[in-house]
């Protein structure tokens, strides 16, 4: 017998390969179909014609997200100060997401910035990028989405290692100076799988915890232990994207304000100014750009200083300046429309509950128990007891933030 002799049984090798060919796995494109087995939900009627696919299950699946968020009314921080940290290290050049991780990250950040300001008009956001082990601040905490997007678009290149600690320390430096009523947050979009730090990262994490900074991470490739620890310690969310669309979903999940931690947000009165919009054609020097501007702009009610955009802090007297629609738009986070409940209704032949035949929102026919002509779920608002269809439910909870049934009750 020679060293590590294994010239035995060459016959078996061939047989083996054949067996493998037969039982080979599905191709990547086949898998998506194989997993949800959509053909199994097709049904035929007595004459062999295909019936419409029952969408009830799909709708229930889609509604699970609301159901999960159902619960007692929670306090949320609507004045947020958030740093978005993009990792543009070497790993961001990987092309497993098309065109590259960096491109996708930039797209997501752009969508996120818009969504963020849409949902949190009173909040501020800043951008930091990590490149070659160094964290660099692209934009200061401010309220203008366009400025952030412009700065990011101008900075799309990647190189070197990533360092979580550097980014944390930088962001913490800026966040520690903001007023106490504001909620401090950091959101990482992390491509790399490691972090090259100058010191002990645990110190930085503990410092963030002490400063009440909530850190969340959206990973692009795999679960990293240190990111998990960071999120667990600071009360953030850690998620990893499977695909481009999933990444976007995960990032946008951070747009609605997170529940406030009781000790982090002490309820306090915040002094705010509601400035008036300057008349068209009036000439004034704005305090933010130190330029002469024609028309537009807002005047601070306390010091009469001029600013270009709301919301912001007055550059002269430091008063928080907002407009009333901003406050109103943040309001729904605090008083959300209650989650609707699924109900089943049988119609009386007498026509007694005829009003329940149609959706209160869109006046389309609603599904009825025992009758298959209309598929889907029937939903009831727990407050006004009106019934809605699936599409109205989505519209009411995601865009409208008001229940038409409840609103008409007020009168």
């Amino acid at each position: 017998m020679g060293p590590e002799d294994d010239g035995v049984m060459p016959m078996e090798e061939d047989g083996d390969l054949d067996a493998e060919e037969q039982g080979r796995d599905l191709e990547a494109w086949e898998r998506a179909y194989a997993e949800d087995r959509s053909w199994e939900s097709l049904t035929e009627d007595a004459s062999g014609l295909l019936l419409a696919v029952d969408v009830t299950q799909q709708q229930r699946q889609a509604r699970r997200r609301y159901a999960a968020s159902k619960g007692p009314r929670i306090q949320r921080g609507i004045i947020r100060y958030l740093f978005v940290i993009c990792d543009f290290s070497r790993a961001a050049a990987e092309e497993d997401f098309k065109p590259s991780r960096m491109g996708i990250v930039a797209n997501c950040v752009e969508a996120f910035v818009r969504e963020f300001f849409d949902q949190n008009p009173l909040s501020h956001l800043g951008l930091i990028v990590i490149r070659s082990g160094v964290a660099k601040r692209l934009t200061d905490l401010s309220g203008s989405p366009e400025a952030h997007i412009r700065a990011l678009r101008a900075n799309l290149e990647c190189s070197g290692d990533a360092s979580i600690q550097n980014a944390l320390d930088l962001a913490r430096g800026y966040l520690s100076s903001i007023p106490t009523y504001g909620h401090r947050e950091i959101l990482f979009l992390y491509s790399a799988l490691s972090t090259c730090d100058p010191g002990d990262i645990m110190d930085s994490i503990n410092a963030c915890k002490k400063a009440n900074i909530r850190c969340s991470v959206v990973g692009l490739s795999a679960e990293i232990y240190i990111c998990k620890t960071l999120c667990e310690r600071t009360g953030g969310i850690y998620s990893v994207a499977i695909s481009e669309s999933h990444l976007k979903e995960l990032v946008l999940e951070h747009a609605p304000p997170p529940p406030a931690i009781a000790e982090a947000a002490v309820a306090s009165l915040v002094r705010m100014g509601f400035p008036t919009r300057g008349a068209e054609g009036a000439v004034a020097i704005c305090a933010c750009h130190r330029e002469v501007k024609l028309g537009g702009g807002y005047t601070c009610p306390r010091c009469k200083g001029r600013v270009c955009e709301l919301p912001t802090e007055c550059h002269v007297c430091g008063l928080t300046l907002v407009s009333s629609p901003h406050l109103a738009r943040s309001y729904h986070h605090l008083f959300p429309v209650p989650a609707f409940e699924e109900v089943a209704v049988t119609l009386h032949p007498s026509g007694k509950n005829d009003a329940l035949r149609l959706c209160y929102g869109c006046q389309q026919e609603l599904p009825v128990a025992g009758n298959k002509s209309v598929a889907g779920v029937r939903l009831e608002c727990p407050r006004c007891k009106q019934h809605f269809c699936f599409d109205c439910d989505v519209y009411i909870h995601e865009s409208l933030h008001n229940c038409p049934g409840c609103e008409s009750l007020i009168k």
Partner: protein
Amino acid sequence: MKFKIEGLTVYFPYEYIYPEQYQYMLELKRALDAKGHCLLEMPTGTGKTVTLLSLITSYQLANPAGKLIYCTRTVHEMEKVLDELRRLHAYQEKEIGKEAAKILALGLSSRKNLCIHPVVSGEGSRESVDAGCRKLTASWVRLAAVDNPNIETCDFFENYEKKGADAMLPQGVYTLHELRNFGREKGWCPYFLARHMIQFANIVVYNYQYMLDPKVAGIISRELEKECIVVFDEAHNIDNVCIEALSVNIRQQTLDGATRNLNKISQVIEKFKSTDANRLRQEYSRLVEGLAQRGELPLADQWLANPALPDDILKEAVPGNIRRAEHFVAFLKRLVQYIKGRLHTDVVESEGPMSFLNSLSRECSIDQKALRFCYDRLTSLLETLEITDTDEFLHIQAVCDFGTLIGTYQRGFAIIIEPYDERMPNIPDPVLQLSCLDASLAIKPVFERFQSVVITSGTLSPLDLYPRLLSFNPVIFKSFTMTLTRDCLCPMILTRGSDQLPVSTKFDMRSDPGVVRNYGRLLLEMVAAVPDGVVCFFVSYSYMDGIINSWNEMGILQEVMQHKLVFIETQDVVETTLALDNYRRACDCGRGAVFFSVARGKVAEGIDFDKHYGRLVIMYGIPFQYTLSRILRARLEYLRETFQIKENDFLTFDAVRQAAQCVGRVIRSKADYGMMIFADKRYNRHDKRSKLPGWIQTHLRDAHLNLSTDMSLHIAREFLRKMAQPYDKKGQGANATLLSQSDLERMEQESMQT
């Protein structure tokens, strides 16, 4: 929770139980009912220990069964078992009350781990602690101390002895640490207390050696009753432990030392002759009556009784030619001289015990019968001569051990004399190896003596080989798979590099630069895609050194370092511990690290790379044993002739179990996840693959066979993303992985109906 298995009430300290744990209990109970031995394979991370303990203690409560003897490999494992036991015991007390759940459980280890004497416990090695202890506690030392207060004794031992039979441990569970604390509190010696308490304990946890090594087993395990249940945990290497217990290596240094020992003994004999000749005479008459008489000596002075020796020898009188001390010394001198002569050889010699014995009796008229008594006769002599520093007499003990073994067994052994190390032919380093070839010899008394022996581990595949190797008949042998809520195991077989050329560590391929480069590229791609810790196993130290060197020259290592830090296992224990420590730190702080290690090394056997410490393990090549080794070849031949096990079958079995052991390091619990890459084209063959344990095979999908580097990279990425998603820990419906009490009650009812 509390439930019934075929009528037996089982107390289980957790809210939920895994289905495989339930199955395991069922099979174990059947084996205990049948009063037979069993062989059970269940993957690590499924709570094997608590399952075993829970069922057996419940069984003990219900039936008047004997003790549970739980054998572990390391002190660390022992502590883990006792911790688990404590939790179980607390639960049982809560369920059925303090009185009913009374147990005494303790761990037993060597003096080194138990000694609390301020000076002796500070000694470095095991032998020196033993000797230090003996110097203070030997009967003649204590006798002398009665008259002369200047002679030092051990207070703890004295206190313990004074108490006599009243020195008892209260009921409870004692780890080594707690034993020491208890000893300090009472001022009793924990070591002797623990040894004494074994006969009263319900559960004893100790090392394999105490059961398998005849030299130790004689003292410790002699008084255990037949009804005992013996458990060998992590027993996948049990055959090797058995073989080592009965193998002796004798080198030039051993012989030199032995000669020194003999000279010293002669001097002492001379001294005794002039001062206390009576003692020697007493010993002589005792030896005439037979070795068995030694049992009357005080406890502390018993060194050993070889259970491997048949009973009739123990009762027999010691042969006349070695009864007198000076004759025995002369006898040993002849033996040492003979072995010395044999070591002076330029060629490798290999022979069976019979021919060795023949030439021994021809050349220096040493007969087999006298040889057989060698070890016991030496022990008796050392006692008579009141020699306490036994650590200096290790050499002559080794020679006597050799003599006894060769005098006792004529089959299943080989004597191999090698003039130099195969790898360094220029340096003469003669060694005489008495190698045990038959693992069943050492374990045979265990199987015969005890009613139920349970052999269990995460990797015992193929199951049918173990009963043959150890020659016993298990009433139950079974392998359990792990129920998982998600596919958290991802084994892959990589057969080709990124250039589609096959990779292997086969002898003719391993130094091919193409293969080396492909292996390097594999590592490089993987470290860029896998977070935190990556572990690589190589087939041998020399291969690892070679390939790391080449990678360094090719610049691959430098590229790897951009992603992760690199740590390497060496043969130096301290260095390796340091490397491991830093490896863990690098994983903890997010820098990421790679650990290069060797299959069959210390790391592969005992260190866990769970959670983020090991997200991927790459097994480079198949860890075959060094097939040119003469010992291995002698063993293979013996296995073929005696047990009809084909050489190739055994080699593959041994290699694959090592590989499985290595890759199994990354999964330590169900919540964990990890990937395993078998990087060698030979793994793709059925004969290798089929020998992997069941829990790996079930996850080895066809799509994960015969991969190239880029394909496996793709799978790895997808797998890591999938595993990072939140999941439901409990599982639902058919793949429920947790059973509650009500589930079990329903199952029980269903099985009653059918």
